[in-house]
């Protein structure tokens, strides 16, 4: 029995492993036959379908074995990947195989066309039919991973191919053509991911070749999968139980990654079954985390329990959710956990990293090995030295990085290339310039930790892009201070800087500049220095402002104290005056008795008035002091002075009218009380200023905590607590209600509880949905592709179905539900029909020669307006039970979207060429409002209450028009991805935007400048979004799945709060929230 595994795991089969490559025999035969006849073939398929394996382990061995009708027995296999220099790589493989000097080959290939054939003909391996001395060889050229012509910016950028890439493709196509024409033993094979087919138009002749000779790798049928699973084990002398085969086949996911996951699982099973010494069965599947223990037979359960009890606690947690798709995730997590212990044992590594450093190295390495392409995480080849520079720690060398990653390169793992060869010790230590690569993207999609890192990195990149915009604005405006960051955004980006720890290498890795390496690094360094400078200057500017404010606050505070004292003095004085005035009154009343007394009293009053005057002057002085300190104190001083003046007058008049004095004294008391209130307000403002500073720090803390949730603590409760506490801090500090970071933290914590039924309600449909509309909370309409209209209740139960098709109807090509009773259907034969399913009536819509894309109903006119792919806008009215076409208008391009505002006389229209028109209903008049260059107007919505029209464009901009003035009031850049759909809440307080990168962004209409909430996940393709009436958002994924998400942080907070069962311990609080933050009970009743 052979020790090596007959299953390669995640990586493709090599030619040497072709003996174990089973299940594709008919496909190999078809490809061989096609190659024999046509000399050239492109093999396409989805990622993970096994294209490379099919060629390396199927077609090439068949050719070498003679199962390929051709001229010679011998074969020269010239395989290459385009990577960053396709022509060099092609020349290299030809040079090695044909034994011709590289430079000569390279120079010749530059001429394109027949050059490759000429090189072959000049070699010793070309013999014509009459002169075969046994040395002749067939030439097999394989361009593997052809999509690298499009994914590498050196080959393709800004929609154009580079000269080198173009020449390489020209050579390959011409080679195939000439080989066919001259019947040469030369064969050209491409492998390419099918999602790049549309880009093939960049290379002349390539689409034609695809049409001429293509093989689309089909899904394996059940019996073929059985061969894939069982035959290699048999060939290797092992056994696999039939029941295990059935379970594996049943558990295989549909779509991407089916085969890589299967091969990985089989490899693990083989190892678990002692390299095939035991029959592979359920017990082994359970022991690798792919089968529930309770489904095992009794004796196997005992075996499993023994195995399970031998595991450490952390590893046991990985077995909590046993299923097929968990196997790869479990394996990768296990390697991640073991990496530190593995590195400790390596003799050749002098300086061992700490556990934290090991985690950092792994996280950074895997993030570097992935990149974001059109919103998806894909593989990224990167040099070992680049990873070291991105980590940027002094004692972390390339050796250290290599040592840490080695556990993922071992024969049983093979997650990272190049793999370690156990027979070659030197393969353990990699050179600095070694290029690393993740074996297969299945690892990115199925290892949850890596996926999380990818999401985190995407977040960092998104923030980096945002920062770049701000930076650019500042630079373009000559670095004016007014373009520096404000406190909120500075905190945000400082936080980002702290988390992402960017440097010039990180920037160079993430930018798609088509530059040579050293120039790219130089540019990246430049950008990095600018960023650092920008942040620093923003901070300095704010500190300077804060310092000025502090001075002002001190002055204010002092003035407040003085004002308080002054006012207190004034109040006391005013009260004294009152009582004195009362006394005066008495004196004045007695004046009539004796003239002398009056005179004396008058003299006394005069004296008193003089005293009051002096007092008033005194007060004036005090008030003036306060005035000097601050504006408000000045106001008070002026007031006090006025008061003093008034008092002076009162004192002078005192002898004349005691009653008046009494009244005035009373007035003074009221005024004095007012002054007291003002002084109190001043005091409060001073306190409030220091409150604001405190609030800001709580807001920043809330953000930090929300980010911390994503580091994912072991204890789910802790995650919930941290997320909810962040929410509370934000709320109590008056933070933005719709803060996306808070939202993300809560959502993340909520999803850890895995209560999917309460969280994101998800409904799968077996039939494909063509159109859907949420009418109200109790009614949802769905039109299936088979023409059945279903009405669903709030629980998504079907209440009613109606078949809308007639006997001779063609296939439905598009449909549009206008409202709860009207629906437009377009058929393949361009017949368009309006269904009034409430009244069970059907009308043919005239006026179109192609599909209708969009429609709206105008109740006031009892009319339907439809826009089609034929560039026509058609207006039809209901008259006497008929639908009569009244007007047709031709527009410059296809109509993508129309909308009608209530009680308006016009309809707004968006076109494919970027034009926006209005159509006046009464006048049948079209008016062009705006023309956007090089964009499409994908969606339009009218906000009836707010008087705006919102347009979603293909360049990711959301444009707000004033409905009356027809001018642009706001232009919001949402994302680099295309805006596909829009939904506006009934209250018009929320806008939801569906984007081509399969994310949804949610804005508050009164806070468009704030960052939006982003909903992202493992969506295949978001076809539609609608805001439901229950404060949630519905996403239609891949036309078969409806998913609902909470819309606001408040909703998630409510959910999370219910799940919390304890509070922070003091230790947890100090470590996570901070020692300097006063302890709080997150949930009061615990």
């Amino acid at each position: 029995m052979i020790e090596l595994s007959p299953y390669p795991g995640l990586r493709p089969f090599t030619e040497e492993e072709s003996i174990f490559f089973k299940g594709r025999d008919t496909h190999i035969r078809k490809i061989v036959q096609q190659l024999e006849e046509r000399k050239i073939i492109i093999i396409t398929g989805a990622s993970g379908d096994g294209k490379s394996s099919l060629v390396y382990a199927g077609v090439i061995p068949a050719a070498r074995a003679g199962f390929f009708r051709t001229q010679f027995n011998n074969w020269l296999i010239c395989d290459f990947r385009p990577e960053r220099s396709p022509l060099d790589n092609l020349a290299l493989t030809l040079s090695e195989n044909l034994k011709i000097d590289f430079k000569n080959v390279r120079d010749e290939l530059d001429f394109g066309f027949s050059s490759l054939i000429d090189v072959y003909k000049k070699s010793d391996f070309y013999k014509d039919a009459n002169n075969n001395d046994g040395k002749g060889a067939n030439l097999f050229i394989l361009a593997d991973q052809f999509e690298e012509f499009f994914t590498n910016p050196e080959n393709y950028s800004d929609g154009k191919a580079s000269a080198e890439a173009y020449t390489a493709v020209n050579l390959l196509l011409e080679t195939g053509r000439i080989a066919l024409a001259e019947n040469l033993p030369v064969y050209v094979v491409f492998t390419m991911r099918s999602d790049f087919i549309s880009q093939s138009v960049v290379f002349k002749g390539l689409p034609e070749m695809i049409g001429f000779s293509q093989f689309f790798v089909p899904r394996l049928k059940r019996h073929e999968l059985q061969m894939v699973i069982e035959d290699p084990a048999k060939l290797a002398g092992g056994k696999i139980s039939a029941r295990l085969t059935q379970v594996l086949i049943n558990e295989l996911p549909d779509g991407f990654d089916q085969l890589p996951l299967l091969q990985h699982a089989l490899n693990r099973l083989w190892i678990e079954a002692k390299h095939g010494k035991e029959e592979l069965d359920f017990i082994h599947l359970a022991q690798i985390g792919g089968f529930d223990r309770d489904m095992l037979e009794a004796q196997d359960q005992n075996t499993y329990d023994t195995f399970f009890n031998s595991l450490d606690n952390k590893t046991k947690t990985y077995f909590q959710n046993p299923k097929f798709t968990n196997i790869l995730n479990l394996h990768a997590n296990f390697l991640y956990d073991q990496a530190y212990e593995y590195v400790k044992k390596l003799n050749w590594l002098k300086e061992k990293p700490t556990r934290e450093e090991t985690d950092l190295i792994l996280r950074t390495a895997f993030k570097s090995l992935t990149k974001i392409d059109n919103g998806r995480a894909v593989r990224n080849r990167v040099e070992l030295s680049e990873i070291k520079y991105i980590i940027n720690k002094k004692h972390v060398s390339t050796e250290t990085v290599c040592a840490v990653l080695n556990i993922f390169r071992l024969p049983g793992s093979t997650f990272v290339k190049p793999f370690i060869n156990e027979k070659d010790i030197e393969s353990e230590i990699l050179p600095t310039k070694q290029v690393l690569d993740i074996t297969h993207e299945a690892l990115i999609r199925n290892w949850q930790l890596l996926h999380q890192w990818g999401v985190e990195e995407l977040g960092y990149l998104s923030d980096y892009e945002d920062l770049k915009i701000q930076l650019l604005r500042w630079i373009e405006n000559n670095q004016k201070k007014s373009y520096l960051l404000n406190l909120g955004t500075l905190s945000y980006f400082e936080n980002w800087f702290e988390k992402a720890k960017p440097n010039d290498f990180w920037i160079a890795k993430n930018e798609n500049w088509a530059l040579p390496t050293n120039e790219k690094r130089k540019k990246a360094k430049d950008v990095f220095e600018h960023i650092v400078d920008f942040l620093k200057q923003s901070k300095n500017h704010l500190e300077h402002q804060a310092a000025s404010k502090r001075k002002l606050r001190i002055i204010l505070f002092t003035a407040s104290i003085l004002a308080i004292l002054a006012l207190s003095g004034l109040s006391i004085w005013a009260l004294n005056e009152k009582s004195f005035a009362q006394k005066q009154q008495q004196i004045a009343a007695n004046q009539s008795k004796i003239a002398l007394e009056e005179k004396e009293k008058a003299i006394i009053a005069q004296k008193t008035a003089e005293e009051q005057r002096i007092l008033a002057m005194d007060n004036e002085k005090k008030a003036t002091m306060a005035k000097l300190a601050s504006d408000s104190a000045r106001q008070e001083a002026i007031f006090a002075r006025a008061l003093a003046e008034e008092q002076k007058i009162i004192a002078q008049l005192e002898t004349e009218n005691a009653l008046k004095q009494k009244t005035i004294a009373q007035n003074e008391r009221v005024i004095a009380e007012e002054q007291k209130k003002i002084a109190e307000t001043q005091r409060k403002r001073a306190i409030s200023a220091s409150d604001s500073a405190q609030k800001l720090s709580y807001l920043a803390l809330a953000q930090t905590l929300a980010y911390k949730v994503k580091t994912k603590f072991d204890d789910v409760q802790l995650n919930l607590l941290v997320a909810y506490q962040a929410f509370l801090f934000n709320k109590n500090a008056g933070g933005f209600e719709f803060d996306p970071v808070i939202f993300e933290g809560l959502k993340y914590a909520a999803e850890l509880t895995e209560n999917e039924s309460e969280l994101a309600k998800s409904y799968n449909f077996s039939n494909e949905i063509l159109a859907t509309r949420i009418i109200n909370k109790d009614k949802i309409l769905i039109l299936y592709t088979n023409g059945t209209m279903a009405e669903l209740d709030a629980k998504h139960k079907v209440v009613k179905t109606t078949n809308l098709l007639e006997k001779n109807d063609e296939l439905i090509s598009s449909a549009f539900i206008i409202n709860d009773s009207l629906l437009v259907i377009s058929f393949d034969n361009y017949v368009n029909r309006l269904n009034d399913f409430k009244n069970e009536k059907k009308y043919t819509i005239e006026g179109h020669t192609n599909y209708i894309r969009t429609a709206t109903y105008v109740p006031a006119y009892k009319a339907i307006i439809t826009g089609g792919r034929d560039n026509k806008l058609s207006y039809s009215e209901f008259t006497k039970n008929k639908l009569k076409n009244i007007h047709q208008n031709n527009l410059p391009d296809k109509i993508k979207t129309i909308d009608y505002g209530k009680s308006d006389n016009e309809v707004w229209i968006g076109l494919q060429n970027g034009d926006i028109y209005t159509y006046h209903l009464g006048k049948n008049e079209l008016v062009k409002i705006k023309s956007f260059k090089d964009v499409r107007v994908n969606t339009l919505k009218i906000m009836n209450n707010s008087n705006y029209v919102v347009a979603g464009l293909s360049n990711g901009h959301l444009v707000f028009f004033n409905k009356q003035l027809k001018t642009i009031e706001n232009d919001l850049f949402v994302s680099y991805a295309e805006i596909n759909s829009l939904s506006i809440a009934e209250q018009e307080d929320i806008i939801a935007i569906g984007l081509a990168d399969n994310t949804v962004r949610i804005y508050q209409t009164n806070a468009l400048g704030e960052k939006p909430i982003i909903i992202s996940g493992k969506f295949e393709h978001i076809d539609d979004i609608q805001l439901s009436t229950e404060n949630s958002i519905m996403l239609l994924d891949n036309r078969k799945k409806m998913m609902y998400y909470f819309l606001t942080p408040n909703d998630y907070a409510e959910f999370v709060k219910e799940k919390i069962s304890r509070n922070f311990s003091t230790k947890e609080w100090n470590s996570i929230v901070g020692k300097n933050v006063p302890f709080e009970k997150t949930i009061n009743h615990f």
Partner: protein
Amino acid sequence: MSQQSKEIKIFLAQTSSDTNILNQKLSTVLQKAGFKVAISEHLSQEEHTEELMLSHCSVHVIGDFVDQSSQAFLNQDFSLAQEKNSTDENFTIFVWHPETKSKKQVNSAFINQIRNKINQNMIFSNHESAVMFVEDLRGVISVNKAAEYQVKKTEIFLIYNSLDSYNAKEIIEMLQDVSPPETLVIEPSSRTDYEKYIAKQVNNSMLTVVYFKYANEWAIPFMQQIWKISGGASIPGQFLLIASKNTANIQNLEFEAPKTSFKIVDDELIPLEIKVVFDKISKHKHND
């Protein structure tokens, strides 16, 4: 509908009450796919066993709520099918347990019991829909198991490349005294579908010899392929890969696999070496 489908008869076994409607639908789908269907519920007791025996395969639908009495019926048909399965290697049992998202108590013990009994020629499927299930069923049944080529049982099967025709003729002559070999010449431009023929002939031969001298680049890849397509370690016979010492680059060639030996000998000793290996195998066979 294909003619081939029309000839295939499927026995649709009894099912529990919770899957009655599904069973009926399945019967219709099977007929639409071109199969003849014998529905157990419509048959009398005598017809029951007879129809099962005449069918190419049986289909057993299991739901989530199989009560005790229904289990008895299911077991009865299942046992009959297993009996037929044990005597007829071409008879396949299909068990269909459509996946539901039901959170109610599932009859998991019964289903586990069925799942643990799965053996060769039994398929356990949990597709959601009847159409998907029948697609799978049709794929399994229509696999062409029989090879087109007529082969005969032989002791020595000798394969060589056309480049080595001259030397091979001498070897064949000398082997006539040992055992007249069945031979096959591999021509690069030939239209013959070698794979199927070789796969069948190897399994009807005691010793398969692949000889090469000048076709050194062809031999190892060829050996790998025929080892694979013939069944590798599970073949009844043995492989012998034999090369001349004078073969170019011979020191760099190697091949190791179960039931295969690789010998490099002088030209004149090749027939003798073949005889030695053949004698060893014959001796083992007699001793078994």
